[in-house]
Every structure is written in structure tokens, then in C-alpha cells.
């Protein structure tokens, strides 16, 4: 779970845990996300787009270089359609829009894991 906002990580973690998923790690920017991905090898990643140090699009590219089968769902804010498209072109599987709608989150994660 990658997001520079601790509160958003907490909310998303809460939604996913209640839906039966296990959150195995969190990262506050793209650079930490790459390190944690290599260490934890999660089944999937939720990735914020705008973050300090390294943004989500760059992190997707780096993770996909390391693991082409990596499953990544982008978490975008309003007005970030272009960036979402860039992330999908870089290999992300889906996107969810913040603030999170629980149903949509679970749907996107379930689909990404299938």
C-alpha cells in the first residue's frame, strides 16, 4: 500500500482488511515502495500517483522492470486522468479514485488478483 498520506493508507488498509485481504506492507513514496516490493513480494500493490521523492508512475515502471508480473492498482485523485493513462501504459492494471468508495476498491483489488 503506497501513499504519502498516512491517513489514506490507514483508510485503505481498513477497507481491505475488513474485506478479507491482508496488508503486508506500506510505503510513503515510490522509492520506498520499490524497496518494500523487492523485500515483501506482495500479491498486489495499491499505488498513489503524486508523492515526494518518487511518484507512482516512476515506481510502477521500476517495479515492472523488476517483476513484469507485478499487479499494481493506481489510486488517483480528481483530475489525474492523464497520469492514470500513463500508469496503465507503464503496466498498472486498474485505478481507483480517491476518496475511496469501498465497493469499487474491493472490486478493483479482487479483479487485479484474479
Amino acid at each position, binding site marked *: 500500500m503506497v501513499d*504519502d*498520506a*498516512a*491517513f*489514506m493508507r*490507514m*483508510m485503505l488498509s*481498513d477497507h481491505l482488511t475488513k474485506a478479507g485481504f491482508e496488508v503486508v506492507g506500506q510505503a510513503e513514496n515510490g522509492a520506498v515502495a520499490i524497496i518494500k516490493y523487492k523485500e515483501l513480494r506482495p500479491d498486489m500493490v495499491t499505488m498513489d*500517483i*503524486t*508523492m*515526494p521523492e518518487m511518484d507512482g508512475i516512476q515506481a510502477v515502471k521500476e517495479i515492472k522492470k523488476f517483476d513484469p508480473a507485478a499487479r499494481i492498482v493506481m489510486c488517483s*485523485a*480528481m*483530475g*489525474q486522468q*492523464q*497520469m492514470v493513462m500513463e500508469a496503465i501504459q507503464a503496466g498498472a492494471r486498474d485505478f481507483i479514485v*480517491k*476518496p*475511496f*468508495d469501498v465497493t469499487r476498491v474491493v472490486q478493483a483489488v479482487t479483479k487485479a488478483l484474479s
Partner: protein
Amino acid sequence: MQQVSSFQLDVLNEIGNIGAGNAATALSLLMGSPVDMTLPWTKFCPLEEGCALLSRPDEVGVGVQVGLDGSVTGRMLLTFDEASALHILLAFGDMLPEKDLDNEMARSALMEVGNIVAGSFVTALSEFLKASAWCSPPTLVHDYFDAFVCTVMVSGCQDTDYVLVFKTELQVGGKVLHSDLAFMPAEDSFRMIMNALGATGG
């Protein structure tokens, strides 16, 4: 001095109304309870006037600052008085165990509120300008208004001396909270806005 006509100000106010509506919808989803946002007024004014509008002498407040990137650039500052910021934290209910302005999670929640409000206004403005823009990660300050408002606004107005100020009212948990949103555009974005306003007539 740059003047805008009353028609052009109406256009800016309408952009603000769209932003406020989008922000209210998003905040309702974030907080899990109804939120309404209205815009009593909009001003396009010199920096000095903008600073005076947002400053509240001898009062402590919270400011959330975001940068704008993309085709529209600049900086935005959303301010709340301390009591309003605390009320927003209360409105999160059980989602937020600690409702203290010095608590990291509480500050993160407020930054997210600021991010959503600024992002909603940025989206409305960029759609009007037919340009793309997005917010950089927010930062939060909790201090006397005099200690941060003018510093943030002056540093945001590096190229121009004009700010767009939206006076907003947030209805959260049955209470009306007053806040101010200032947009300090970079020079090329300032020209883009003036050209677009000129094209709309007035």
C-alpha cells in the same frame, strides 16, 4: 493594476462553485457523512489585499498548502481557524482515533481534506482553461495566521502580484465552518487565466 469586470468575476465565481460542489461530494465520501460547501464570494485582487483577507490577527489557524503542476502552475493555500480544523477532525468520528492537531494521523487527515478541496478547485479551473493540472503533495502548518499566511502567499506569488481568493463555507456535522482558499498563479498561468476570461467576454 489588473482589473476584472463583474462578468469576469462571475465566471471565476462559477468556477469556484463547481469546485466547491465537487469538493463537497468528495469530502462526504471521505468523511462518511454529508458535507456541503458554498462560496459566499470570490475576489481577484492584489497580493497585499489577498494577504489581508486571509490573515486573522492574533488567531491560530491551520493552513494546507499545495503546489500546482502541469499546464497550470502556482500554489494554493487553504486556511481554517483552529476551532474549525478541530471540528473537521471530530467529524471523522471513529475513523480517526486521535483528534489532536499535533497528532500525525490527524494532520494527515486535514492535509487530505485540503488536498481534496484544492484538487476540486484546480480541476474546475483547468477544465475552464482546457488545460491539465494536478496538485503536488500537501504540507500543513498549525500556527498564528500572521506567522504563515503572508509568507506562503508571497512565496507563491513569485512572478505575479495577483491572487484569486475564494471565501468558502463548509457545512460539516451540522456546523458552518469558514475557510479561505487562495490561488497564487505563476506568470504564464496568470496570463492564461486573463486570456480565457477575455475570451469569455465582459
